[in-house]
């Protein structure tokens, strides 16, 4: 299969117009020393029918979560995505466009991003949002960079109960900067504001808190904000957008920056990507924001229109002095987020969050009633919780997987002291019957072990 329109006759005609005899002449500028003088060793070509068959066969070697019964969450959430989302993001004018460099023919993308920014600002209770970042993990690193630049300080504190992969990414980024990253312990799952306050110093640029945290627990946002602000540090909150249908807006309890993973709205699990990071901040931080920002303005005839704005922050103008290196971001994923949230509205988002909350609590109640099982942490939680199981969680999960059930994430891989614990997530996609099936299967397999 090829997607090339030229016929041989056309190629010949065009070569002639170029004044060359063969296409090889056009490659003359490449020194012979670096020419590849053998065919590439690749399979193919395949016709479209064969390609479709090949990929169907590969897909068939996977079992998607809808062929299993999955209680996995941990940063990637299975929600029902309304059919309208895909139909709209599948509009060719959206997905085959580039970054909107020519606003006059890109109002669709630009207005949608403006609406995305508006929604993110509304959800987080902050003033301004950008047009998206790569994902939740990199958004944390970008937020840390902003805080460091803004405060001109050299240290960042982050909860040990922030998503382990987010912490790893922060570590990778900050390793190159002359800064210290310290973790705030969370022995009871949630952070202790007093203990955190004791760690914040005049050198602290930011305190990074995930809320609900990686264990699903709700943090004492306001107290943590006070702890940070007391020493002039910023509070960066990492939030799940679905939880914000129910939970207080981070801006309302003192967050200066709120970032997070937008996947739960509108985006499929997709084996981890593409996802979409979001970022919102207080107005005063806007000129330090990474990535694209869209603003409303007027055209020559006075009609409203939208443009990429505050571009003097950006790499294509400021080069090494830019606030970030981000060029392409995750616009189409942000669009999916925007469409899904448009369908939900404030009431739908709240109902969705409540459904998750109720179902997760039902599951937690039932699981913790099983002999040998108990909740690992005492605090209030949203739609994920940690349950201690009898024996190694990894093995129990494997036995459940053999029965087509993924009971949650065994936490030993990230927390050596939690090898007997599962992180269980329950969303609206799980019926009571499905939860009951999980409970039964766990009870049986735990007994058997």
């Amino acid at each position: 299969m090829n997607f090339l329109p030229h016929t041989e006759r056309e190629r010949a005609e065009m070569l002639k117009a170029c004044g060359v005899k063969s296409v090889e002449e056009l490659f003359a500028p490449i020194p012979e020393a670096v020419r590849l003088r053998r065919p590439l060793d690749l399979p193919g070509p395949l016709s479209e029918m064969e390609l479709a068959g090949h990929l169907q066969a590969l897909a068939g070697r996977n079992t998607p979560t809808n062929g299993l019964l999955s209680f996995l969450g941990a940063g990637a959430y299975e929600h029902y995505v309304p059919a309208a989302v895909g139909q709209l993001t599948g509009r060719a004018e959206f997905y085959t466009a580039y970054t909107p460099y020519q606003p006059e023919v890109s109002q669709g993308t630009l207005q949608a991003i403006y609406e995305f920014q508006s929604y993110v600002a509304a959800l987080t209770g902050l003033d301004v949002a950008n047009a998206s970042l790569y994902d939740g993990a990199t958004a944390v690193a970008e937020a840390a960079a902003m805080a460091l630049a803004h405060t001109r300080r050299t240290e960042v504190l982050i909860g040990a109960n922030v998503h382990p992969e987010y912490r790893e990414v922060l570590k990778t980024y900050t390793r190159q900067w002359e800064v210290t990253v310290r973790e705030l312990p969370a022995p009871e799952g949630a952070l202790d504001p007093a203990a955190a306050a004791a760690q914040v110093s005049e050198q602290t640029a930011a305190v990074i808190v995930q809320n609900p945290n990686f264990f699903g627990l709700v943090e004492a946002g306001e107290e943590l904000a006070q702890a940070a602000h007391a020493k002039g540090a910023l509070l960066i909150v990492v939030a799940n957008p679905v939880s914000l249908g129910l939970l207080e807006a981070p801006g309302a309890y003192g967050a200066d920056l709120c970032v997070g993973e937008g996947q739960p709205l509108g985006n499929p699990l997709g084996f981890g990507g593409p996802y979409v990071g979001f970022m919102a901040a207080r107005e005063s931080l806007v000129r330090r924001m990474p990535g694209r920002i869209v603003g409303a303005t007027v055209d020559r005839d006075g009609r409203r229109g939208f443009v990429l704005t505050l571009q003097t922050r950006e790499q294509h103008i400021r080069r090494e002095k830019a606030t970030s290196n981000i060029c392409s971001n995750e616009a189409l994923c942000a669009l999916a987020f925007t469409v899904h949230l448009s369908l939900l509205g404030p009431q739908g988002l709240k109902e969705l969050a409540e459904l998750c909350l109720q179902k997760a609590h039902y599951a937690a109640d039932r699981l913790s009633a099983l002999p040998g099982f108990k909740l690992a942490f005492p605090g209030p939680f949203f739609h994920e919780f940690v349950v201690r199981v009898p024996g190694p969680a990894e093995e129990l999960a494997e036995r459940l997987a053999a029965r087509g059930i993924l009971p949650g994430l065994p936490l030993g891989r990230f927390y050596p002291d939690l090898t007997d614990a599962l992180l269980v997530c329950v969303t609206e996609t799980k019926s009571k019957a499905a939860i009951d099936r999980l409970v039964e299967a766990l009870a049986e397999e735990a007994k058997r072990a």
Partner: protein
Amino acid sequence: MSVPLLYEISSPGRRGYSLPAADVPQKPVERLLPAKALRKEAPMLPEVSEVDVVRHFTNLSRLNYGVDVGFYPLGSCTMKYNPKIDEAVAELPGFAGLHPYQPETTVQGALALLWELERDLCEVTGMARMTMQPAAGAHGELTGLFLIAAYHRARGEGEQRKKVLVPDSSHGTNPASAALAGFEVVSVPSDERGMVDLERLRAAVGPDTAALMLTNPNTLGLFEEQIVEISRTVHAAGALLYYDGANLNAILGKARPGDMGFDVVHLNLHKTFATPHGGGGPGSGPVGVKEALVPFLPVPVVEKGPDGFRLAYDRPQSIGKVKAFYGNFLVALKAYAYLRAVGPEGLEQVSEDAVLNANYLRVKLRPHFAVPFDRTCMHEFVLSGSRQKARGVHTLDMAKRLLDLGFHAPTIYFPLIVEEALMIEPTETESQQTLDAFAAAMAQIAREAEEEPELVKDAPHHTPVRRLDEARAARQPDLRWTPGR
């Protein structure tokens, strides 16, 4: 033509959703969560119906221009046609429905795909291994620079090698990524032929140099003919050579960055490998490295063992992670599908036609515009609007006029080293007729610039909105909807 914001058609209580009824015993929310943790005010979101939402975004899309609408000769961006089959296979539940933490036994197809794609991209670039983790080109650059830093650090030269050299013609992400990675950026000027000035390079490179970042062909669409010498110079100083793969479309099957001496390469799957750009992403920016840098690659890497594929984390020298999970998998998947469809000879033909198209257009446009570096180009070339500027018509004006004539504009004012630059990349998926039509439009604009300059200066005339006040947008930022504004 304008579409109201959804906020502007919101009606309190209207709904566009349906959720299943709760089938578990319910508890009062206040018993499950502390009152303090609960939201006091509902978020300010519009309340609309499904048909409102569908019409809204359908009509918004109709204000957009995409590759499926017409020719998009955006230089450096490789806006080629995105095959429809790739979109279809990316929606298969066996891919789209996979959780990143599923047991490896349940995702063998996905891991096989990542493993095969890695091998293929290594073959195309001449590298030893590759990570799919970076989400875009710039993210790939950052990752590559982290790898370079780790390499020097491992050799005890981490503190010493703090400079990254970039040509003055380079893309803005190159210096920005270097800065974000903690390096000091040093700009290397181009010579009068548009190439890296070898003398100045020799002067700049030294024991404090971590790397030189290049794209080849460079942003003028010209192949760095001295690449072997450049590579020798950089390596002699103990520095590494970084390849910005944005321009790989020119040389597929013809030459490989690895063979040119590049140590680290990032690719833009959303350019060369035909995955769509989505109005600004998601992209995918895999990074390939030579053997010496393999130990530093982000975790996990996909390994093939006797029991199948696995995600390997046991890599003590790894830089860690640059993104959660394994990269933009569903984008990588489209690139894989594209590669399989096209095959090795097809891939070479891609570059041949891409280069042919660029040269054909260059020759056709030469009578009407200044061509600062007028010789055989690769997949793109740069015009200058300097002649038209004399009439008061700027490159921006001509770009806007193109919109009137049904084309997307080329990249403008880049590279920075060309005055009034128009950077044109037709790509291989455009037919001779399309190129001829574009050339005719450009010739018309050149004529208009002579004869009716105001027509061009006032352009666009036929777009959904006319020229927008960007200064006002920056001066009085209006970045979100606010009631009553």
